[in-house]
């Protein structure tokens, strides 16, 4: 099982290049797609889900160009878009039955599968309620269920935890971890902790380009010895923000504990172990500095 993205670019207008010469090869496992807003994550996801065509380059599923045979990929695809709608007059079962029919599942298999999935996403009790009365988080869970209907070999989930409460977020992370068997899962998010908890690989995108592709632990050495904790009075916080890349602050009785990234730390700082979030911020800052230079 292999998904190959070769020199893919996407241009919406002559002046807006959403993705630029993007190349990536994926095998089984969970890929966390990280990047700031507007980096090109959703564009990449839409192209992988056959919703939009690349302007240049090719995407291959098991060696087959999806441009020449999109159904080869679509028949094993599960896709949860960032923004999707529901039919408000249908209940969860009816909506999933409809999408199961569209995806080509027979009625008996669909019914069984829907029961299991509604249980999985914790919507069994409200299965007969019209979707129009669902909250945002409940709709998102219906979206997760529909993406799993056809036992996808390629599961693409774009900002899946948006709108979920903390417990449901943890629950979804567990679902993703359980899924990471013989399939490819692409998880796009800007919530680093979601990726940290589930991803076997990370792809970092910035300004339409692939900045890094590595295992999460492989990203950490780059920031090793560059993360510091500094305790300062709150009156000095603004000056520190102007001078250093700060990944976190917390106010305590002895002052503000500032977590900063720097090759040359200020006096009075203590070195701390880096996290994936530190590595992510560091990579992005390096990338921006490179572009600015």
């Amino acid at each position, binding site marked *: 099982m292999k998904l190959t993205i070769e020199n893919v670019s996407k241009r919406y207008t002559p002046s807006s290049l959403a993705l630029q010469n993007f190349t990536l090869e994926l095998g089984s496992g969970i890929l966390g797609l990280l990047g700031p807003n507007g980096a090109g994550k959703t564009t990449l996801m839409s192209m992988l889900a056959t919703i939009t065509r690349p302007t240049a380059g090719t995407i291959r599923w098991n060696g087959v160009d999806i441009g020449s045979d999109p159904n080869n990929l679509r028949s094993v695809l599960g*896709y949860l878009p960032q923004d*999707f*709608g529901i039919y408000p007059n249908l209940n969860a079962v009816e909506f999933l039955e409809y999408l199961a029919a569209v995806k080509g599942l027979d009625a008996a298999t669909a019914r069984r599968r829907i029961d299991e999935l509604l249980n*999985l996403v914790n919507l069994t009790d*409200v299965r007969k309620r019209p979707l129009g009365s669902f909250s945002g988080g409940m709709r998102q869970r219906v979206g997760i269920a529909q993406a799993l209907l056809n*036992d996808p070999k390629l599961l693409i989930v774009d900002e899946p935890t948006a709108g979920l409460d903390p417990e449901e977020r943890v629950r979804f992370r567990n679902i993703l971890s359980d899924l990471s068997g013989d399939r490819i899962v692409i998880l796009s998010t800007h919530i680093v902790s979601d990726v940290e908890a589930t991803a076997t690989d990370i792809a970092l995108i910035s300004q339409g380009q692939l900045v890094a592709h590595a295992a999460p632990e492989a990203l950490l050495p780059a920031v090793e010895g560059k993360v510091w904790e500094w305790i300062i009075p709150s009156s000095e916080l603004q000056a520190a923000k102007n001078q250093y890349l700060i990944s976190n602050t917390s106010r305590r009785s002895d002052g503000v504990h500032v977590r900063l990234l720097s090759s040359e730390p200020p006096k009075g700082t203590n070195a701390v172990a880096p996290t994936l979030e530190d590595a992510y911020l560091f990579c992005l800052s390096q990338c921006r500095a490179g572009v600015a230079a």
Partner: protein
Amino acid sequence: MNHANVLYHMVKADFLERVRRYSFLVTLAGALYLAYGVAAEKVVIVVGGHYRGQYNSAWIGMLMSTCCSVFLSLFGFYIVKNSIERDSGTRVGRILAATPMRKAFYTLAKTVSNFAVLACMVMVLMAAAVVMQWLRPEARPISLWQLWSPFMLIALPAMFVTASLAILFETLPVMRGGVGNIVYFFLWTFGLVAAAQKGLQDAAGMHILAVNIRQVLERINPGDVSNSSFSLTIGGDHATKTFLWNGIDWNPRAIAWRLIWVAAGAGIALIASVFFHRFDPAREHSSKMRRKYSADAEPALVSKPVRASLKTLSLAQIPLLGRSRFARMVASELALMLKGLHWWWYAVAGALLIAQFASPLTTSEGVLVAAWIWPVLLWSQMGCRESRHTTQSLIFSAARVTYHQLFAIWTAGFMVAILTGAGAGLHLLLSGDPQFAAWLAGALFIPSLALALGTWSGSSKFFEALYTLWWYIGPAHQSPGLDFMGTSSSSSSPLLYLALAAGTLLAACVARRRQVAYA
């Protein structure tokens, strides 16, 4: 807070958002085509049976402003009746709802914004009127007052009333959707008929024009006015005689009548504020849903132990359907189409079906006219449901779905036509009447037209407006060429509608091909 400033910025933002959409350019092109129709004498006003005015500034201004107020008050309504819906869909409404803005202010601002869009089209026609008179050597010179005063005093007040009615309909829960679109068509028809036959003052200004022109005509040639008719005709017979008309005498009474309509428009906008839901999610839901459920009442999920895991699921390859998949998709599309209908919908459809069976052949075709307007709101969802509910990415990422699903929708729509018109169809078939071909062509044509308009426009409104108008002019009045149901042998054209069914279905396929990246 400076209310004028807030009003200005609200109207400006709304106006810019609309005019920067592709659909606005299409509408503008439609307005220009209307101007061309007038210039090419395809749209004429005939008075007293066979008179028309000389094409001087007064007559051209009156003719084009009448076209504006009559046609734009119908089509313009459907164009602008999405102002509140857009704020709701984009969630901008919820931001506005959290401000101190009053409901009356909002509905008034939206009315003015609707009016600005419609007035923009009127202004295009005002410019076109100048060009038209310049091109016609029949009567010169150009008098801007005579040319433009009917636009300002007849068309613009009519547009203001249309703009406010669109807001009122959007705020009334029952009128917000397709029902409102159909009801407005009959309201519009009733307004024109009342003005023409009962001599009532109307928003479109037909009465004031008809009375004024007839008085002048009777003064010029009292013995030669065969009847008192005043008709706006599209592609009909041209007038054989001309007379000189120097425009409406805009005395204070006449102006006051037109200003009353502006006040009525403002009144309608204020009434709309009473029903406006202020983007309260609980009130945005249908009343049926509201009664049963509280919108934000999430079930107590957090307290429940999380037992299910993917390990309990069978993740073996799920078999996909082969040939029987299409039948399952048709069943799903039909279920989706019928979902949410009230019992009384089925009761009326059933009653109309029984009436077709029970009545003699000649009458059953009359009942068919009613039977095939009843499901208009089901057909109008065809092809646009995906864009209305933003489910395209879920559906269009499925395998082999591009045309399968489209034809499944069409088949479901065809089944609705067959089932609701079965009585008349069986009567014709069993009696060996050749009109059966017309009935079948109608049943094929209706879902094809709905699918084409739905896929191309992404909205149900176009089909609702066009189909209702077509139904009213064609089958309901047995107009030859327009009677797609073939309600009489003299008016039916089965071959034409079979060809149109094929053409519109092809158009739907082209639209779907454009929607799906890898069709």
